[in-house]
């Protein structure tokens, strides 16, 4: 295989505005951004709660969340497939092989990442931040918001890490999305398909986009941390 020619072809596809290629990129970004929008608020709230509350079983829940960080995405996909398939508990919703199913799967994959990183950020916060807010008369909600703002770079790291994980995951998207062209084919599933067919140009182009997104997210975080004093 002529790598140089294939790479040149890949960039030609990308910059010529190949409709099929850009549709795949659009689906990927749409599904993952919507999943983040749905998962982030409750997960950050839950992370804050687990980091600050005291109740029986809290430690177990934290360990469980940290354990779920390593859950294989294909297993999440398998469980979701069983739930959404026609014979499954939610079969009547007819969500299997839709973008909605992919979003649900990515929400489930993002949740433990967001919760675990938020717990870590809040536990690392200076306890005086919350105490000062409380002493100045802030409500429980306001003092939580203030604490999260004080550790916002840790929370942003949670969001960017979760986004990085879901935009590049293939197992769940393949299982519950079905890799249907123009509907559920996203960047990772398209790369796998094109590579299996020996069509490397599209795979390289999509891989390049995925790398740019991943690096871009990390540069954005590094820039934000630099602006904010790095904490």
């Amino acid at each position, binding site marked *: 295989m002529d790598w140089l020619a294939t790479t040149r072809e890949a960039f030609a596809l990308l910059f010529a505005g190949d409709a099929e290629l850009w549709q795949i990129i659009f689906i990927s970004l749409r599904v993952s951004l919507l999943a983040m929008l749905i998962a982030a608020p409750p997960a950050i709230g839950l992370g804050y709660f687990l980091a600050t509350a005291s109740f029986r079983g809290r430690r177990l829940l934290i360990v469980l969340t940290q354990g779920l960080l390593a859950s294989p995405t294909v297993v999440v996909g398998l469980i979701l497939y069983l739930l959404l398939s026609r014979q499954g508990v939610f079969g009547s919703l007819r969500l299997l092989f839709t973008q909605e199913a992919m979003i649900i799967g990515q929400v489930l994959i993002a949740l433990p990442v967001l919760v675990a990183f938020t717990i870590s950020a809040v536990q690392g916060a200076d306890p*005086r*931040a919350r*105490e000062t*807010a409380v*002493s*100045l*008369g*802030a409500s429980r909600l306001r003092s939580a918001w*203030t604490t999260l703002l*004080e550790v916002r770079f840790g929370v942003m790291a949670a969001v960017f890490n979760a986004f990085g994980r879901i935009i590049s995951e293939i197992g769940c998207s393949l299982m519950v999305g079905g890799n249907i062209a123009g509907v559920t084919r996203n960047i990772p599933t398209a790369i796998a398909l094109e590579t299996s067919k020996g069509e490397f140009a599209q795979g390289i182009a999509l891989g390049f986009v995925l790398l740019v997104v991943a690096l871009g997210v990390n540069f954005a975080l590094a820039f934000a941390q630099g602006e904010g004093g790095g904490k």
Partner: protein
Amino acid sequence: MSIPLLAVEGIRKSFGARRLLDIARIDLAAGESYVLTGENGSGKTTLLRVLAGLESAEIEACRYAGKPVDLHDYPKWLRHDVIYVHQHPYLFRGSIADNISYGLRARGMTASACEPLVREAIAWAGVGDLLDVPSHSLSGGEKQRVALARARVLHPRLFLLDEPTANLDAEARHQTMKLIRDLCDANSTVVLACHDREIIELPHMNRLHMESGKIDAQDGHAAVG
């Protein structure tokens, strides 16, 4: 005798076998100033934090202005009356004005209503020349003055100040002392934990000496046990 602003009976707190607090009774009169003295670990900070509702302890009874209150479930109205300032105050990210207006905004005040109060607080604390300095870049003394202004702008009836002049250089200590004297001269009740002789010997200061979690010596208006 008039009703004390804060009267707490039977404050007890332990950490393992170690007794951190064992106070039969403490009464704080309205408008009076108190200084808690004692060695490190004698329970001064813990007592202030318990009174501020930031730490739990066994408490037999507590009355604020004659009204029974539960310090474990610190009511909102009491939170508006009592302010605790850490030994090393924490300033939120942002400007000095953001920090000073925090409590006012938490009470639902609009930005325009906050502005004159914040301006007055900045002038009182003498931090007008630091307005453009990010809060995390301030020195210990500057942070202390901003924290005192942030507390005073809320007009609490009870200030709980933990070692406000500790670890400050001579100039910063002098500026902070001026603010503390001003707070003590005003109508509020001020309780300070400190080792600073200048504060301890301030006129009209009630001295409470703590040892091993107990208040073992007193003068002035505080009823203790």
